[in-house]
C-alpha cells in the first residue's frame, strides 16, 4: 500500500489518545478520518505530518519509513484548519514558498505558482495580501500552497470548518475534482458525516482513539459494523441514490415535533 500506518500509539500523560491504529491506503485515493471531537483524529494527522512523534508504531509512505523524519523533510504537506497563511506575503508568495526549498529558479517557481493559482481559480489575486481576500479564497491559497510542492501525501485538517454551509458544499466538489485530476493521495479529517461520505474513497470512523470501521463509504452505509456507527453517521436520515447522489432526509416526525415545540 502507498500509505501504511501500523500500530500507532500516542498518549499525553495518563490519557491515551490514539490506541493501536492501523490503516493503509492505495495511491491516489482519499481517506477520510471521521469522528467527534477528542476521538484522536487530529492527533493521528499530526503524527503523519510529523508534528507529533508517536509513542510506538510506524508510518510508511511509498515504502519509505518516515516515522522519525522531521516535518520539513517529509514528503507530506498539510492544509491546516487555521490555514497558517503568511500574513506578510502576497497570495503568490504564499503559494510558491515551499518551492524555495526545492532549489527551483525564481521565474520557474512564479510560473508554477500562477498555474496552481489558476487551478484553484485565484489567478486574479496573485498580488493580493492575505487579509484582503475572503475566507474561501484563503482556503484555496492554503490548498494550492500545499499541493504545489508535489507531495506524496497531502493532509487536510478540517479544512472547511471555517466556511459557511453553501461554500463548504462548493469547496467539497472542487477538492474532489482537484484530487482526482492530480491523482493526489490525501488524508482528510472531519467531524462532518456528510462531508466524509461524499469525499472519501475510504472512510475510517474513529472513537476514543480506536478505528471502529474502515471501508468504502458505500459499504459502511450498507453494513454499519455497530449500532453506534449507524447512529453516528445518522444513516436513518440518509438515502443513497443509484446514481451516486446522497440525500439528507428531514424526517416528518422531527418536523412535527418542531412544530409542536
Amino acid at each position, binding site marked *: 500500500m502507498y500509505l501504511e500506518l501500523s500500530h500507532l500509539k500516542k498518549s499525553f500523560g495518563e490519557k491515551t489518545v490514539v490506541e493501536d491504529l492501523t490503516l493503509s491506503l492505495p495511491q491516489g485515493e482519499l481517506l477520510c478520518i471521521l469522528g467527534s471531537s477528542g476521538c484522536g483524529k487530529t492527533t493521528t494527522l499530526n503524527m503523519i505530518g510529523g508534528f507529533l512523534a508517536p509513542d510506538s508504531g510506524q508510518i510508511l509512505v511509498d515504502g519509505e519509513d518516515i516515522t522519525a523524519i*522531521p516535518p520539513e523533510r517529509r514528503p507530506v504537506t*498539510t492544509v491546516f484548519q487555521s490555514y497558517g*497563511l503568511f500574513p506578510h506575503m502576497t497570495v503568490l508568495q504564499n503559494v510558491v*514558498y515551499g518551492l524555495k*526549498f526545492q532549489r527551483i529558479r525564481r521565474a520557474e517557481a512564479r510560473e508554477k505558482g500562477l498555474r496552481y493559482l489558476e487551478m484553484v481559480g485565484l489567478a486574479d489575486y496573485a498580488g493580493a495580501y492575505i487579509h484582503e481576500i475572503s475566507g474561501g479564497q484563503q482556503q484555496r491559497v*492554503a490548498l494550492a*500552497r500545499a499541493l504545489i510542492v508535489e507531495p506524496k501525501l497531502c493532509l487536510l485538517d478540517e479544512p472547511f470548518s471555517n466556511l459557511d454551509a453553501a461554500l463548504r458544499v462548493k469547496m467539497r466538489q472542487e477538492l474532489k475534482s482537484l484530487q482526482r485530476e492530480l491523482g493526489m493521495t490525501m488524508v482528510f479529517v472531519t467531524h462532518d458525516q456528510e462531508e466524509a461520505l461524499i469525499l472519501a474513497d475510504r472512510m475510517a470512523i474513529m472513537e476514543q482513539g480506536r478505528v471502529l470501521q474502515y471501508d468504502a463509504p458505500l459499504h459502511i452505509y450498507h453494513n454499519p459494523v455497530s449500532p453506534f456507527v449507524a447512529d453516528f453517521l445518522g444513516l436513518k436520515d440518509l438515502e443513497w441514490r443509484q446514481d451516486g447522489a446522497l440525500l439528507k432526509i428531514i424526517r416528518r416526525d422531527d418536523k412535527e415535533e418542531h412544530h409542536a415545540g
Partner: protein
Amino acid sequence: MNNRGHNTQERASLRDALFGVPHLSGGRRPGERKGGALTAGSLLDKAILLLLLGAVCLFVLWPMACILLRSLGDGEGGFTLAAYAQVWSRYRENLWNSVFVGVLSALACTVFSTAAAIFIATRRGWVKMACMALLLITMVSPPFVSSLAYIQLYGRRGWITYRLLGISWDPYNCWGVIWMQSISFVPLNTLLLIGILSKLDTGSLQAARDLGARPAAILRDVVLPLMGPGILVSLLLSFVRSLSDYGTPVIIGGRFSTIASEIYLQLVGYSDLEKSSAMNMFLLLPAIAAFFLYRYLMRRSDKLSEGSRSRQGRLELSLSRCGPVGIGIAAVSILFFLMMVLQYGCIFLAGFLKSTKGVYSFTLRNWEELWRLDAATMVRSVVYALIVSLAGTLFAMLFAYYMERRRVPGRSFFDCVATLPYMLPGTCFGIGYILAFNHEPLKLTGTAVIVLANMLFKQLPTATKICSASLTQVPLALERSARDLGGGQLAVLRDVILPSLRPAFLSCFVYNFSSSMTTAGAIIFLINPGKKLAVFKLFDAVYTGDYAVASLIASVIIVIVLAVEGLAYLITWKGGERNVS
C-alpha cells in the same frame, strides 16, 4: 475572539446609528420612568465626561502650548524667533550629539531587545522564568541604576577595570552614554517584542516547516518579518527616549552633553525659561512626529496578527538549529542577561560595603544612616505613588470607557491628546508644567498636586491602554442588557463596566505604582526641595558621587515596589477566590 477588539468601535457606532441610542443622555426609555434620579444620573454622566476631557486638555495640551508660546515670546508680549536662532547657533553641537547618540543607542538597543525577545520566547522552564524575573526587576528599577553600576564596575576606581584588571581609564564619554542608554532601554522593548511574538500565528510557523523550511529559514522568512513593525517601534521608542534622556549624559557624559542634558543645566542652573523652552521645542517636534509614526506602526503590527487563530505558550523554534543567526541571538541574549546579573549584584552589594584603603568590608552603617535621614522621603514616595495609582487607575478606567464605548465628539482627538505624554520627553513635560501652573488662578508649583498630576498624566497612556484592552473583552451584549433592563449609562458604568475591569485594575495599579516610584523624568523639575522623593534623592546621590547611599536607595525602591506589587496580587487573588465570577 481576536477580532472583537477591532470591531468594537465600529459596532458601537453601528449600534448607535441603528438603534438611535442618544449617546450623551441617560438610558431613559420613552414614556417610562422619567424620574428625577435618572436625569440626575445623566447629568452626572455628562459631568464626569467633561471633567475627564477638561483635565486631559488642561494637564497635557495646555503645558505643551505654554512651551510653544514661551519659546516664541520676547518677554514683552510680542513674538520673536530669537530664542530659536540662539539655540541653533550656540547648541548645534548638542543637537548633533543628541541625534548621534539617539541613532546609535536605538540601533544597539534594538539588536539586544530583538535577540532577547526571541531567546526568551523560545525557552521554557527555569531559564525562561529566570530571564523574565530579571526583566521584571529591571522594570521596577529606578533610572540611573545602569549608570550607577557602570561607574562602580568600570569607573576610575571600578571593581572590574581598576581592582580586577588594574587599568585606569576615563569612562565619562559619549560611548558610555550610548552603552548605558542601550542597556537601560532593552527591558521595555523586549517585553513589547515578547508580546508581539506571543501573538504569532502558530499555523504560519507549522506551515512553513511543513513546506520544507528549516529553523533558520523560518526565522528569516516568518518570525523576523512578522516582528518587523515591532522592531521599528522599538527603534523609534529608543530613539525618542534617548533624545529625552538627560540623566545618563549628566551622570556619565563627562564633558559630552546632549540637548536634553543642556536643558537640565539651563533649567536647574540658570532658570532660563525662554531658552530652555526653545530647546525643548527641538525635542518636542521629533517626539510628536515619532508618536504618530508609532501609532501607525502599532496598527500595522496588529493587522499582521489579526488573522492568527492559534495562540501558543512558546515559540517552537530551535535556536541551536538556526545557524549563525541563532547562535548570535543566544550569545547576545546570554551576554545581556549576564550583564544584568552583574549590574544588580553590584547594586545590591554596594550598599553594604565600605572601603578602607582599598579593602572592602561588610557594614550596616550606610543602611542606618539612610534610615535615619531619609525615612520620611521613603514614606512620602510610597504615599504619593499610592495616591497616583488609585486616582490614575480610576481615571484611566473611566477614560477608556468613554473612549471605547461611547460616541464622544472629537473622540480621536482626545484619545490622541491623552496618549501624547507616552512620547513626551521628561524635560518638556516638566518645563511645560512649570510654565502652565506657576501663576494664579492655577498656582500649583511647589505643591504636591503638581507632582501627582504630572505622574498621573505621564502614566495615563499606558494605563488607558491596559483598560481599553480589557474593555474589548466585555461583550457589548452585557452593556445592552443593562440598558434594556432599564439601567442608565451610569448604571452600565457601575454594574457592568467597572466590575468587568477588575483584572485591568490590578495591572493598571501595579503599572502606576512602579512607574510612580521609579520615574524621574519630569518630576525632578517640579519637586519642592523640602519634600523630596526617593528617585530625586537617588539622582542627587549618584550626581554627587555618594554611590553607596545611591545603591541602597535603589535597592530599597526595588524591594518596596516588588513588595507592594506582590501584596496587590495576593489581595486580588484572595478576593478572586472568594468571589469567583
